[in-house]
């Protein structure tokens, strides 16, 4: 028996895949080759279970410069001004070692942005944990936030927003998704190895064993609570080197010294080497002995697939090699020629003068398996159609205050105060806003970004939940006065080998496609994270939508907080008092989510965005805040907290608690100077957006008519509840 026939399974390859490898090589694979196939054909790198379905996403639009398939999507947000926008998951590493897992997650997405020739200028983190208050969960929360803080702050990229959601389905499988925005400084870069004779330069950290089979293998299988055993794959972040990599590489781009450029992440050197050559139809020879190591005795396969952090691979014309090395050395960074582009179409790995791997480049990338895995709608969903039976709260004031202190709703100041959200001087709206508003460096152009993923809705109805996710993200952007233009998405699911999970996945993709088409915001990139489960229990299907919007002028910008006493408060959009399935009010009772999620009317959503856009351009709005978790009650409270101003509202007659807590989509609460209400109402009528006068800004209370609570008391509950729910931090 050959070596391979006993090994491939340990490396995560199936018997069929081994047969495919033999067919492509027309011989038995060497050990190094087998390792290279195992990372490149892993679920994480190859998207083998998802590719077929992702093809249904809309990817084209007037603003899109680069769609999915490159390091990051690129969007033209103003004439000649291009931004890169992308999200990635680092879920499994963050469970194994929260601080370094989250930190290296930040590092990874930042290098994706950098690979496009863009300067990273903003980060957002989308986090999910089990309910707080237990030692293990709180340890994860502290560690993940600390990891993002220590890495993001040190590399000088502000973390301008995010979301932090708690549900016990994530207790043993937290989600750490990080999005990054970058601005193309000079010229867009491409991950292509053109031009035989050009050299391959590895820039950044030395290579160790720390990342062998790290992200790719960790993210491509479920694991038990004993995940600590996966230790060899733990990577330690080095933000100093990352910062130097950013500055050196941007200088290389400015000086037009690069012919091709890609980051190293999952799959190590193997990944950019095979992707860049297969995209260009070229090949490469890599001499692994020339790769700087930090550990002795590493085998060629280890060097090829190690996922050591803070490295980039550049393709450089020989005449430009000296200047490239000089720039890197001035930034006190390692930079080493490790190989050369060839015309063979093969990726050849050499060590000690011997060829240890010789593989057609495309067989590692384009030829990776594509699976059409079985799907099955779970019958358990049938029961959810019925709707949610909720009783009227006995004491609505108490219910309201309890709602404000729920971990999902309470202020996340404890989280975002650990992040530098200001560096770069571009953060016009940071954490606490519906979407962050970022002014591009030395420019009058501003964009709005947000990440949203209502997992509970997706659990109840993945298609509808995904549509709601896109709509909520777009609405958050629209509330700042921006036009939603492009989506990046991170799809977090259980095992694709489960037919129910695969059904959830395809439903979610269908929902995203549908909503993105309907709202005119194409998908420019994303990431799929499968195998999010522990001991066979999958997480809620959790698509996280990263929405990018464009502001037509800095003056059109609107914030969430009330601004002046006496302003009118209005509700835009229609409320269905029975939209309580999967709501925060329903979840407050505990137990599994039930009921059906709200139904989204894309036309109504679009009209709302149109109205918000027009009203902000015409300066009709003093504030705008979308309605999401906790409905109108929470939105009004947050607008009051944001502006340190109370309010008095009168709700329509009937079951006012339903109006207060319903989570119908496509709504926003706005405030408006009294003299402008008529113009707003006219615009609303023209665009067909229902508008309801609610009341007035002012006073020291949150006065809902039926009940009132003091602003100060409610605010302090909301502000401190989250930190109080965590048990004490230890070291």
């Amino acid at each position, binding site marked *: 028996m050959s070596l391979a026939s006993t090994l491939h399974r340990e490396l995560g390859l199936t018997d069929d895949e081994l047969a495919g490898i033999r067919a492509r090589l027309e011989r038995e694979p060497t050990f190094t080759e087998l390792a290279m196939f195992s990372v490149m054909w892993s679920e994480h790198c190859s998207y083998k279970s998802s590719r077929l379905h992702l093809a249904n996403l809309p990817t084209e639009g007037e603003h899109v410069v680069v769609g999915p398939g490159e390091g990051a999507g690129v969007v033209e947000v103003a004439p000649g001004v291009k931004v890169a926008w992308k999200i990635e998951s680092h879920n499994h590493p963050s469970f194994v070692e929260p601080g*370094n897992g989250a930190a290296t997650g930040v590092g990874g997405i930042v290098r994706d942005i950098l690979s496009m020739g863009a300067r990273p200028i903003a980060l957002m983190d989308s986090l999910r944990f089990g309910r707080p208050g237990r030692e293990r969960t709180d340890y994860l929360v502290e560690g993940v936030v600390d990891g993002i803080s220590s890495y993001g702050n040190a590399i000088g990229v502000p973390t301008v927003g995010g979301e932090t959601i708690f549900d016990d389905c994530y207790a043993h499988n937290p989600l750490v998704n990080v999005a990054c925005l970058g601005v193309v400084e000079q010229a867009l870069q491409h991950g292509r190895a053109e031009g035989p004779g050009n050299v391959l330069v590895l820039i950044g950290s030395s290579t*160790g064993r720390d990342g062998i089979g790290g992200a790719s293998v960790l993210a491509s299988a479920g694991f038990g609570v004993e995940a600590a055993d996966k230790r060899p794959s733990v990577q330690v972040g080095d933000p100093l080197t990352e910062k130097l990599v950013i500055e050196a590489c941007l200088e290389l781009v400015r000086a037009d010294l690069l012919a091709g450029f890609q980051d190293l992440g999952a799959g190590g050197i193997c990944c950019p080497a095979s992707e860049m050559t297969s995209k260009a139809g070229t090949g490469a020879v890599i001499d692994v002995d020339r790769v700087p190591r930090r550990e002795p005795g590493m085998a060629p396969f280890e060097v090829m697939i190690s996922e050591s952090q803070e490295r980039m691979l550049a393709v450089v014309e020989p005449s430009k090699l000296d200047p490239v090395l000089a720039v890197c050395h001035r930034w006190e960074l390692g930079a080493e020629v490790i190989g050369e582009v060839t015309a063979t179409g093969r990726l050849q790995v050499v060590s000690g003068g011997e060829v240890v791997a010789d593989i057609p480049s495309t067989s590692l990338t384009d030829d990776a398996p594509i699976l059409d895995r079985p799907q099955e709608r779970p019958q358990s969903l049938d029961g959810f159609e019925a709707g949610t039976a909720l009783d009227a709260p006995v004491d609505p004031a108490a219910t309201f205050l309890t709602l404000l202190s729920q971990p999902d709703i309470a202020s996340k100041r404890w989280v975002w105060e650990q992040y530098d959200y200001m560096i770069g001087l571009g953060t016009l709206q940071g954490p606490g806003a519906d979407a962050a508003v970022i002014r591009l460096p030395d420019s009058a152009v501003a964009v709005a970004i947000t990440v949203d993923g209502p997992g509970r809705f997706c659990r109840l109805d993945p298609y509808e939940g995904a549509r709601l996710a896109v709509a909520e993200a777009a609405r958050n952007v629209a509330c700042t006065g921006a036009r939603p233009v492009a989506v990046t998405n991170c799809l977090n699911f259980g095992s694709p080998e489960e037919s129910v999970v695969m059904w959830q996945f395809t439903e979610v993709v269908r929902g995203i496609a549908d909503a993105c088409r309907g709202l005119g915001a194409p998908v420019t990139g994303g990431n799929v994270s499968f195998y999010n489960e522990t001991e066979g229990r999958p997480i809620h299907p959790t698509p996280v939508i990263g929405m990018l919007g464009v502001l037509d002028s800095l003056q059109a910008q609107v914030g969430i907080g009330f601004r002046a006493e006496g302003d009118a408060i209005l509700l835009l959009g229609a409320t269905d008092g029975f939209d309580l399935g999967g709501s925060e009010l329903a979840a407050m009772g505990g137990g599994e989510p039930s009921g059906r999620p709200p139904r989204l009317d894309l036309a109504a959503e679009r009209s709302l965005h149109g109205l918000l856009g027009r009203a902000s351009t015409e300066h009709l709005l003093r504030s705008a805040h979308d309605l999401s978790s906790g409905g109108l009650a929470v939105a009004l409270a947050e607008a009051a907290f944001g502006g340190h101003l109370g309010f008095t509202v009168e709700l329509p007659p009937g079951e006012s608690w339903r109006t207060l807590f319903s989570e119908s989509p496509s709504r926003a609460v706005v405030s408006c100077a009294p003299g402008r209400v008529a113009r707003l109402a006219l615009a609303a009528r023209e665009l067909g957006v229902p508008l309801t006068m609610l009341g007035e800004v002012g006073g020291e209370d949150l006065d809902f008519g039926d009940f009132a609570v003091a602003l100060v008391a409610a605010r302090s509950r909301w502000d401190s509840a989250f930190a109080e729910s965590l048990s004490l931090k230890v070291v």
Partner: protein
Amino acid sequence: MNFGAVVDVMLKPGIADPQGQTVERALPALGYAGVEGVRVGKRIELTVDAGTPEEARELVAEMCNRFLANPVIESYNVTLL
């Protein structure tokens, strides 16, 4: 009885230690040649109340496993004073 204890927590061999590496790289510029293998870890001093030295040691080891060290990337060593 009170026992003084010292816990040394270091990154496991094979786990990258950017801090140690950076210090090592900085040393020649400060005029120190020939310094190698720099690793930076934690030292924790404490006093525990226990019946016997064995019990004290066990108690501290348990605390290390639970929260003074992160067993995924760190190893620890307990010394009784």
